[in-house]
């Protein structure tokens, strides 16, 4: 059965960028639609129900974070934001408001397509796949066993939880705050030190070379990402 072609809504006020994105995406057989401003994007999203939205943070009418928030009020479709360098705060705000991942301009088509694929993928919760395999790591969610190259790894409950959440978002970025809140709870959103220490320990256990992490990647200033092969 033919899979329905996925449609992607491109939101950016720069025509050149829209053209590039469109070309890159249609080359992968996606359908594309375009919007040049926030309000327009929300209207099109409501009426056309795309499968993914690529959203620039700097829009003429509303800022991207606000658009994300409004979109999230009626849809859970993946949102990838386009940001510029050194706007960490905006990136984090957008991610916390519900965006799934980000791309820093300028970016290449390879990065773009990889993110797009990941964005759809991580919508599949860990519940549907009992075992997660990525490279040398395998996680058995039912039995709560983690293996590295078939060697069982002993993780603390916290470390396991962190890994599980990372797997849920596999390929995509999760902000510090999100990670803290999902693992520890609402009020722990700022306990960065605690998070870093745990990540450090986790890395030591599951990374072949902890000094040069292969799986758990630090997104500077933003959060962490579990890289998938």
């Amino acid at each position, binding site marked *: 059965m033919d899979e329905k072609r996925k449609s992607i809504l491109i939101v950016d006020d720069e025509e050149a960028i829209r053209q590039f994105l469109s070309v890159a995406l249609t080359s992968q057989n996606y359908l594309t639609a375009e919007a040049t401003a926030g309000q327009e994007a929300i209207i099109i999203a409501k009426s056309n129900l795309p499968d993914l939205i690529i959203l620039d943070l700097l829009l003429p009418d509303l800022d991207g974070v606000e658009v994300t928030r409004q979109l999230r009020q009626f849809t859970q479709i993946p949102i990838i934001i386009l940001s510029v*360098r*050194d706007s*960490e705060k905006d990136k984090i705000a957008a991610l916390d408001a519900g965006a799934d991942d980000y791309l820093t301009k*300028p970016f290449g088509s390879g990065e773009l397509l990889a993110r797009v694929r990941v964005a759809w993928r991580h919508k599949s919760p860990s519940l549907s796949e009992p075992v997660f395999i990525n490279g040398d790591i395998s996680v058995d969610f039912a039995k709560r066993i983690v293996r590295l190259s078939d060697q069982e790894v002993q993780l603390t409950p916290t470390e396991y939880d962190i890994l599980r959440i990372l797997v849920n978002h596999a390929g995509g970025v999760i902000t510090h705050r999100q990670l803290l809140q999902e693992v520890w709870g609402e009020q722990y959103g*700022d306990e*960065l*030190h605690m998070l*870093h*220490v745990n*990540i*450090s320990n986790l890395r030591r256990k599951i990374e072949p070379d*902890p*000094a*040069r*992490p292969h799986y758990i*990647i*630090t997104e*500077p*200033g933003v959060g962490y990402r579990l890289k998938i092969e």
Partner: protein
Amino acid sequence: MTQDDTRPNPDELLAKVTAEAKQSRRGRLKIFIGYAAGVGKTYTMLDFARQRKNERDVVVAYVETHGRQETEALLEDLEIVPRKKVEYRGVILEELDLDAVLARHPDLAIVDEYAHTNAPGSRHAKRYQDVEELLDAGIDVYTTLNIQHVESLRNVVAQVTDVWMRETIPDSAIDQATDIELVDLPPDELIKRLKDGKVYIPDQIAQATSQFFRKGNLTALREMAMRLAAQRVDEQMRVYMEEKSIRGPWPTGERLLVWISPDAASTNLVRNARRLAVQMGAEWFVIRVETPASVHLSAEQIESLNNALQLAEKLGARIVNLQGQTVAEAIGEYSRKHNISKIVIGRAPRLGWKEWFRGPAINQIIRKNRDLDIFIIRSKPEPHQKARKTASRLSRNLRNTLLALLLVGLATGVSELLRNLLAPTNLVMLYLLSTIVAALYLGLGPSILVSILGVLIFDFLFVPPYLSFAVADFGFFLSLLSLLVVGIIISYLTSQFRRQTETAWQRERQTAALYSLGKDLAVANSLESYLDSILKRTRDTFTGEAVIFLPGSPGKIDLQPYLSNPNLKITENDLAAANWAFQHQKIIGRGTDTLPNSRARYLPLITARGVIGVFALLEPDGTSELTIEQERLMEAYADLSAVAIEGILLSQETRKIELLKASEKLQNALLGSISHDLRTPLVSIIGALSSLQDAKVKLDEKSVDILVRVARVEAERLNHLITNLLDESRLEAGTLKINRQPAEVQDLIGTALEQLGQRTTSHQIKIKLTAELPFVPVDFALIVQALVNILDNALKYSPSGSLIEIEGRSAEKGIELEIADRGVGIPSSDLEHVFEKFYRVHRPEKVTGTGLGLTIARGIIEAHEGRIIAENRPGGGTIIRISLPLAEPPLPHQKI
């Protein structure tokens, strides 16, 4: 100026134009002059004013009616500014309220009695100065004046009336009048009015009223008044003719030289000379000549010389101090150099023994200046104007006399003791000795006393017949006589010698002071050190505290004081006076006519560019007036200071301008370099893409591949460059926000290597971190970037496959990181410079890059209060050492 040119002098014309321009802004002064009290000056003035009332805004600033009804009637419809009440010694005096009139700012102000002296505590000592301020403010003034109050006519008036006027005004105050209105009344009528009681008698002539108001006197005075008015007309006519370029009898650039000699008649000479100069329309110079003979001058002579010079300056002469072997020589040389046309010398009628010096001088001058006209003016000496001896002087004289007597007694006593051992002719030496001592320490008078007394006593006690004044032997008589003569001569010479030494010493001190100030200023190189030197030297020389006022901001008149003594308090009065001196560019304060009761003398510092500040000398209480020499010295100080301060201000400005220029140049160079670096990648990108686009260009797959790759690489390079430039400019602007969070060192290094991506595969990278490294509070992204830049460098400047070591360890209060490569290293002279903007060590092979990587790294590290240095690795290669502190600097508030 030649003497046969009758064309109008361009300088004079220019002066006239400028004066005219000034006059249009300055108020016009009309003086109503009369020859005596009672001729009706005030009445006429008020009459004039009332006539103008309808056209102009007229205000009565001060009018003295002396109770006369007819005068008072004229005041009725005129607006009167209330007088200021000034208390002085328990009496309430009324004076012109200058500030009220200035505030009211009428078109025309009526000010009676031009020559009036203001009560102590007023801003100016004399009313004519108040009028001057009104004129400066653009207010026209009518005023009245009696002819006898004119300074240059004072001695003539005295000759005529035998009354020496104390209240006078300088001739300059009259010269500046736009109009002189002569108020005349035939003397007979005036005398009649006097008899009718209609004339107010000023106090000074009250006792001599009948004598003053004799017809002969009045006529003479009347003539003087008329002549003054006529002179003015003459002057105006001359000016008019000059303007119209009419040839006529105007002065053809005459220059008058007046020689002042130490003679009490000199002030009269000055006045006479001035009249002569005015009549001739000549520029006049008053000179004093110092010759070797000048050291014989007495204190009184010097004082009268000073008086004469001060007067001459007031009357508008140029003062010149000359030095020379003889007076005639000095005068002759000066006359030749400055094109003097006429010489004026004074000759006192009395011929004392001092005329030994005087007579030949005149003859010599005549002889040496045969081609010049020489005027010899005879003048009567002035009435006694010597300073009163103060009480202290009297007591000092008494004390010296007593000491003299003591000396004689001492000499006698010793002689008595040695009477039998020495012959009288030897004993007499003791008396001689005492004479010398007296001359050296007690003064001329006491030493002559000692001399005479000594002779008498010696005669009485030691010359046979003893105990009598008779002299037995003629030889003894001769000895006694010689003793007396020698004693007197020694007294005279020694006291002269002492005076000379004192003067020379004083002069030397002053010169030394000026010299040392000059020396200080030559080495000073900042405004503060200049001011310090000036203030310090002033304190040494003048025994008073000095203050320099400089404008706080250029162009504005808010003066800020600079003090040498921090305990000194600057009062509002001081500031006000300084501001006044600054604005009006006049020397005021103690010893002058304006604000004479202030505690300091304020000298504006004037340079070619204008007034740049005020120099104030606070004098310790109770000092007498400054001599003209001290005043000159102070002015010399002020001038020197002015030039020095201006110099340093100018050099500061110059330096600022140079810095601006230098930074502009640098900016331009940078812009040029950046623009080149930015454009270069675009060349390849556009070139590659346009080739791909061009249908005419046939490309095989391989070529297409190459072009695309080139474009991609260059685009990335451009991105990298832009990023670096933006980062650097943000660092420099200080807008970098550091968001500190505890970060793991391992994570930092790992992320940095991750960001470098594929490039790390070309080298061997070894990481060695001590266990349990603490978390450092840093901005994660920024430190990662710094590490990326450093590693990028290491990768670029070391050969493929070589080792790059990254080490991290704990240190006191922080952590240390080391990144070492095995590349070519950095020349030791460049180790400091590699962190500079756009710095690139010269390499044989071309290495791409912006030269900003390490600069940005350093900026980031230092913003975290860390340190970064470059070293050469023993064995080849470079080590970059970074240290980062653990302690965060205290933040305004921190979330715990």
